[in-house]
């Protein structure tokens, strides 16, 4: 009897985990995280809106490339001004690179003039693993119907070179433009590049 109960618990746990894996063209798994000011945000709060998830680690050279070039901030500003919700998520575990105090996050975000909607803290990596976030940056886009419609890199230049930003094909920008124009996303996935997420 005891064994049957344990098997049931394991099965249910497995099914729950399986159900929570993000998949293209399926409902994006909901989550609730606190931002760097202690305010809770759930994905479900943004029902009816396009949401961008950006995995972040301010000390990763690939993230630095996109923030030092102001590329990321320009995208954040352009699309949040059009009603897109932009959530930066940090899944760095305590003691690992990219895990900062709230004050440090806010200072760095201000220094970079970051224009995201919120910087969410995912210290136990649960949300990162649910979405299969491998790198920083790793980008995901959820459409207004709540479906995951893009997963991958920010662009096609897998380098740390700031100069490459100008000539790169930006997948996030292309997908958001299509969504905002009522079209389907043409390129739904690309290979993400960057540092490993410091789970």
């Amino acid at each position, binding site marked *: 009897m005891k064994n049957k109960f344990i098997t049931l618990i394991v099965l249910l746990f497995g099914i729950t985990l399986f159900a929570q894996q993000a998949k293209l063209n399926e409902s994006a798994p909901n989550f609730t995280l606190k931002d760097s000011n202690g305010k809770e945000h759930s994905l479900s709060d943004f029902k009816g809106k396009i949401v961008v998830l950006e995995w972040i680690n301010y000390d990763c050279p690939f993230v630095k490339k996109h923030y030092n070039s102001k590329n990321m901030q320009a995208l954040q500003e352009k699309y949040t001004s059009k009603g897109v919700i932009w959530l930066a998520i940090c899944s760095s575990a305590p003691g690992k690179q990219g895990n900062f105090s709230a004050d440090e996050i806010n200072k760095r975000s201000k220094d970079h003039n970051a224009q995201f909607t919120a910087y969410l803290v995912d210290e136990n990596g649960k949300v990162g693993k649910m979405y299969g976030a491998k790198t920083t940056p790793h980008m995901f886009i959820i459409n207004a119907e709540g479906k995951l419609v893009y997963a*991958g890199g920010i662009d096609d230049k*897998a380098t740390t070179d700031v100069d490459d930003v100008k000539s790169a094909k930006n997948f996030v920008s292309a997908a958001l433009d299509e969504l905002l124009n009522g079209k389907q996303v043409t390129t739904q996935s690309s290979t993400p590049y960057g540092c490993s997420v410091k789970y």
Partner: protein
Amino acid sequence: MIKNLLYSLFLFQLVFSGFAQVKNEPEVKIIFDSFSLEKSRNINAAVVVKLNDGWHIYWRNPGDSGMPTSFEFILPENVKVSEIKWAVPKIFEFEGYASYGYEGLAVFPFSIYIPENFKHDEITLEVNLKSLICKDVCKPFNQKISRTIKLDEMYIASKEDSDLLFSAYDNLPAANDKLELQAKNFSDSVVINISSDIIKINRIKDVHFIPYENGIFKNSVAQNFTVSDSDLVLTVEFDPFKTKIPDTLYGILVINLISEEGNSKLAFEVNEKIQ
């Protein structure tokens, strides 16, 4: 096995002694194998990167994170250089994700072709190395290196350089002339059926497919397989966000064999149509 390990350690020690030590930065140099242009216009060479403890540099496909190591050659007119030959990488695991690369001494062999009409008595080879090196954190490692070598006489490589090149070539994946492969596409994986008249399949202890292209297959430390007396069936899962459905299986197949003499590792380059 122990003999190979001791030999590697010996090589490592020898080559380390040939580098200038700069704290926390890898050292890079170009090495040449012995040559005489009278005998052959091709020269075997390599870029060698000596990494500090715990750091690694990436293979042509970095896997789930990192950046491919790349080389830009600046050559005198009419001199040609081959593609870099990529040794079998080590798999680095982190939280269920996997990257491919090298640690310790990373050797990137290539060959140079000097044409008959090249009249200079020396050649300067310049290489721009672009890479990312990682430990618990990552940093870009870009370096321009050059080496000039005389061509008017027979060049005799040092034993260290010669051994290092021999070892590097020995660790390249071989053309597949021993395995019969059949790859079939399923919705979430490619299933590879491996048989052979040359290798005893039931002596395969472990097998792993490492793709040349990123973003198609799930990168992982372990891949599921079953072995019978006649064949081995390896399942390579697709990445949940795969960028395309492949029509060929392109990469390397690494096999660990057990026999009375001990364990041995074989690696074959595969380029197989997927049915």
